[in-house]
């Protein structure tokens, strides 16, 4: 961070702990996404955990830092791509016989309780994880950082708050 600027975010303790924890949290979220078909969890829960890691970074280091890592544009694209991926999986099933058909492992059943044992379910979970993680992060950013203001012509406009991320 730039020393000349006013310090943003939380204290050094929080920032240090966040720096240690962000990796494991994201990893745990990915684990939840990838084992959604075997144990409790799945795309939604995993996506929320991944988004929480970014929320924690935003709280600890300020919005400017977090948005430098994952921009609004990127989050929006990831959000759409997740949903697109989900619909595409459904449509591939449609091409192969039936809408949402599990076209990967219907023919050759794999041994149960393996990561690759549920065909399209794993892929769908990844898609949902992307979608949920990105949209939750966007909702947080919009609630915390973006302000709607009125410009000179009386039209509403969205701007980024000056001292983003102060708590």
């Amino acid at each position, binding site marked *: 961070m730039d020393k000349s600027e006013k310090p943003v975010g939380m204290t050094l303790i929080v920032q240090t702990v966040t720096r240690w924890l962000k990796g494991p949290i994201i990893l745990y979220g990915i684990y939840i996404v990838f084992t959604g078909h075997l144990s409790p969890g799945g795309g939604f829960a995993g996506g929320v955990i991944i988004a929480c890691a970014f929320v924690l970074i935003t709280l600890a280091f300020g919005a400017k830092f977090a948005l430098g890592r994952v921009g609004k544009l990127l989050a929006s694209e990831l959000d759409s791509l997740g949903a697109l991926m989900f619909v595409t999986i459904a449509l591939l099933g449609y091409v192969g016989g*039936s809408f*949402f058909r599990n076209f990967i492992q219907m023919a050759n059943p794999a041994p149960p309780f393996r990561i690759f044992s549920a065909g399209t379910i794993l892929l769908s979970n990844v898609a949902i994880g992307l979608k949920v993680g990105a949209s939750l992060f966007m909702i947080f950013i919009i609630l915390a950082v973006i302000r709607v203001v009125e410009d000179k012509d009386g039209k*509403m406009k969205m701007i980024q708050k000056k001292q983003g991320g102060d708590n």
Partner: protein
Amino acid sequence: MNRLPLFVAVPLFLAFLIPVLGRKWKTLPDILGNLATFFLLLLSLSILGISGVYAVGGWPPPLGIVMVSDGLTTLMLLIVALISFAVTLYSIDYMELYTSKTRYYSLFLLMIAGMNGVIITGDLFNLFVFLEIASIASYALVAFGCQHEELEASFKYLVLGTLASTFILLGIAFMYGTYGTLNLAHLARLISENGSTAATKCALGLFFVGFSLKAALVPFHAWLPDAHPSAPAPISAMLSGLLIKSIGIYALIRLLFNVFGFTPLISHILITLGILSMVVGVFLAIGQWDYKRLLAYHSISQIGYVTLAIGLGTPLGILAGLFHLVNHSVFKSLLFLNAGSVEYNLGTRDMKKMGGLQEKMPVTNATSLVGAFSISGLPPFNGFWSKLLIILACVQAKNIPAAVWAVLVSIITLSSFTKVQRYVYYGKLKEEWKDVKEAPQTMRIAMVMLAVCCVLMGLLILPGPRNAVLTPAVNALLAGREGYFNLTFSR
């Protein structure tokens, strides 16, 4: 029925493709949005009147989710596709007033996917999910301009809409707790075997309240006069023309006729709600000076006609109700698009400030006249035939008071639209509107298209077109629980 999932899949796919690609090519949202609705229009024409079942994922009912198509489904799909095509055409120029077309088309297609999903699904929880997709997209679209009035209306709509969804979800929980299935046809079979238990009655009451809120029947109408006028004009046309019908009336009558079974009590409730909406709506409408707010109150009134006619439960009544539902979609969308093109050019919705626009906006004036004649029930426009059928059905069912109310409300509707024509289009042109121009090309095409539909749809009264379009829908409802079960489990 292999084409059935495309009604949901295509708009859903494009709704998420447009935000990804729309940033780079500015005209892409327009092109993709219009292509999507045109494709849906062709698709819905191709399956008109065909009944069938589609098992999602290859899982047979009642295990998997099914999509069911019968006469009523295909009729609703056709009308959704027709109106949304006209509206996307209109949006090309109109939405230049707003900032983000990418987001607009994305939400718009999500709303269509939700409505189509509600119409084709044969599963109770699936119906709820699609209903929420359509509703949430519509909350966002009402607030699209982000001005004070729009945000307030959207918030009111959101609170009442969520309340309705909660009622519906609670009803679904009752049904699932009692019968252990969510498949509509399977539920119908179980209800007819077990008779009406306390839980069924409770669920029925919850569904009644929930879907009446979504359909804005009096006394559940409080959100509509705020939400519909505040939205951008194409969205007002979608909300009044389609949304309250597909996720309100359609879902309600599907459940009442094909799942719970139609009883005299239900008939009484529907008739009472219908007459109440008809009368209250039109009396609230006549004093309005806000162009779109007046139209919004008329939506309540006309939905009352539909509910009354279907509530009679006779074949003629259902035919009249569905006919009026389809007609109302067309002429109310047309009237909202007219109001939109006046607002586009003048920047105001206050009718007191307008006047003499007929010389400046001849196309808007002519199409608005067609719409006004249709909604007031003047021959030979479509509204006349459906209102005539409604009155005949009331008389045939020996419900003379309902027939009298239908006639009276129609007369008040006429007077109210005389006011619209008089204050907006006739009279002296005010000095400040000297430089007003006619609406742009695509907006004119959309309005003319709907006006032509208003005239042509009167032909649906003739036996040939009627048997092709309306009669299968009536039969689908009259088939009741048994017919719906046999259709869903036909494989």
